[in-house]
């Protein structure tokens, strides 16, 4: 069987998140949904357009959620899908967030923008197994209030963990309550979180520059590099280590990542155009 052959999936529901972002709830046209782990991704394709890597944003018993932002050709077609439409699915691929390594410790989750989507399965896991972790803090930054994702989950999250949010710009929506969170970059939230740096696992996902500065500040606060995890993004055509596109120096991000510990990638993130 060719590793390139997608499996036909069907859209079960479409959840609109923001003006440009939707969550597709999908299931196989026949058979069982593959077992996915938090942090893994799949190659999704709408008919006639390219396959693109999209992380799993919720792992239900027989359904997978993928939260997709329309930024170009392939994501336009994917975000235009309606309930009942078909799509291609290959996966799961890549490494997972190290949940087991965080058990018994403080967990620090830092998300920038759409980076909250690949981390939501981590928060789902915490909701179901809250007793396995010590303190759990979520720091979440977006460009503006209208970009905030998964608002419907926030109340539940706040009941079991600390959730702090910040926006780059406080653009008030006419029909919205005044913004109660912070304004400014996400790294400003780090000093506000309570954690024991010697006994913390941090998971960071967002634009590369956000991950770089966040990881730097987390390290400065005393967390060892090996306990800080980031999820890297590179152009991917195959997701199976065969096309060469996702190279970052000595890593094939699709094979060795996308989730990688900061001790392995820190020197690579400061070299331009690597």
């Amino acid at each position, binding site marked *: 069987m060719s590793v390139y052959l997608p499996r036909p999936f069907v859209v079960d529901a479409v959840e609109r998140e923001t003006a440009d972002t939707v969550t597709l709830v999908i299931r196989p046209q026949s058979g069982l949904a593959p077992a996915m782990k938090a942090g893994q991704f799949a190659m999704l394709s709408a008919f006639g357009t390219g396959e693109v890597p999209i992380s799993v944003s919720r792992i239900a018993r027989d359904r997978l959620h993928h939260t997709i932002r329309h930024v170009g050709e392939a994501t336009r077609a994917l975000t235009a899908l309606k309930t009942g439409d078909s799509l291609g699915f290959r996966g799961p691929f890549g490494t997972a967030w190290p949940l087991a390594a965080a058990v018994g410790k403080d967990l620090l989750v830092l998300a920038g923008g759409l980076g909250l989507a690949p981390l939501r399965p981590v928060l789902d896991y915490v909701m179901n197994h809250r007793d396995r972790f010590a303190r759990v803090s979520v720091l979440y930054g977006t460009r503006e209030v209208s970009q905030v994702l998964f608002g419907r989950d926030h109340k539940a999250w706040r009941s079991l963990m600390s959730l702090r949010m910040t926006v780059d710009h406080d653009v008030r929506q006419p029909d919205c309550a005044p913004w109660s969170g912070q304004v400014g970059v996400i790294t400003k939230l780090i000093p506000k979180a309570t954690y024991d740096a010697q006994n913390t696992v941090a998971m960071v996902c967002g634009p590369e520059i956000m991950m770089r500065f966040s990881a730097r500040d987390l390290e400065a606060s005393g967390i060892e590099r090996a306990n800080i995890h980031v999820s890297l993004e590179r152009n991917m055509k195959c997701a199976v280590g065969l096309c060469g*596109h996702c190279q970052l*120096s000595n890593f094939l991000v699709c094979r060795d990542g996308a989730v990688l510990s900061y001790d392995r990638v820190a020197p690579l993130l400061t070299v331009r*155009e690597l």
Partner: protein
Amino acid sequence: MSNRRHILNADAFDQLFDALRDAGYTTVGPTLHDGAIVYDALTCAADLPVGWIDVQEAGRYAVQDTGSGRYFDYTVGPHTWKRFLRPPREPLFEAIRSGAGVAFHAAAAPEETYALMGVRACDLAALGVLDAVLTGQTYVDTRYATRRSRAFVVAVQCARAGNTCFCVSMNTGPRASAGFDLALTELKDAGRHVFVVEVGSPRGATIAAALGLRDSTEEDWAAARAVSAATAANMGRQLDTTGLVSLLQQEAENPLWNDIAQRCLACANCTMVCPTCFCTTVEIDSDLEQTRASHTQVSDSCFHASFTQMHGGPPVRDTTSARYRQWLTHKLSTWHDQFGHSGCVGCGRCVTWCPVGIDLTAEAARLRASHEERA
């Protein structure tokens, strides 16, 4: 497995072509076309560039007729064996839509069964490199694996090194000792014109048996080894690989990359002629009714801007400097980390076929010198 060595008279060389044809193989190998020695279908020994040699230098390639009557005195040209085992265009699958449903149909399995005639030691090593990438990881490129496992390899032990060859530095040649079905060393002097035939596999033994060859003598074998020793002593280029893996990664921000980029045209010639470059992208063609879409794998190059495209910004490797750094560093350094061995086998093609004559052995040496100066 038999390690027996035989003698094949050059005037009976056609019998090997016949035996391969009878065994169901399509023989491909070197042939003269438009002033270059390329790989194409061969029906008999006369299709080989008999008596021709190639003259190679950084950015230069020419062929000359020497009238020697020898079959294999050239080295490697612009083609590589991947054009047969992993063609530049490969069908992946077709998506067929009916109503809201979709079905994906895998492309038919490849049918070709090739005999590769005249595979040099460097190129045999390159096949090993491709095997590790395309068949040695968790996920396997089944089309390549199918063609590769069927392919019959007739190696040729080089009697002449080209001016851009450096297989000795890369420890890949000039003598192939394994990985072939049959290996030929051509011996020609006033008295005789023969091939010493080494058998490297049971499949090779079957074909050798069909030829009814006589055994070689110790003297024949000594003569064959002397050919390789002489070739090894005549390498056109060399590359010091000591410590190169970490050295190149440490030199990621050396200004020399910008200096090379002043000359590099980012034309991707080096990646096209390299026998180990494996990168691909996917093209999609759909019909007007939007009911069928075919996905095709096509060769790609890290020199193309689209290779590292990300939405809403420049590609990750936007400058020629960053792209050349990726190419050279991947070949000589990061390939080791990714796959456990070098991505360069020292065939010299990228040096010869670079339109501006950029020589990776010289550039690696300059980076080493600059590194050591600061150390």
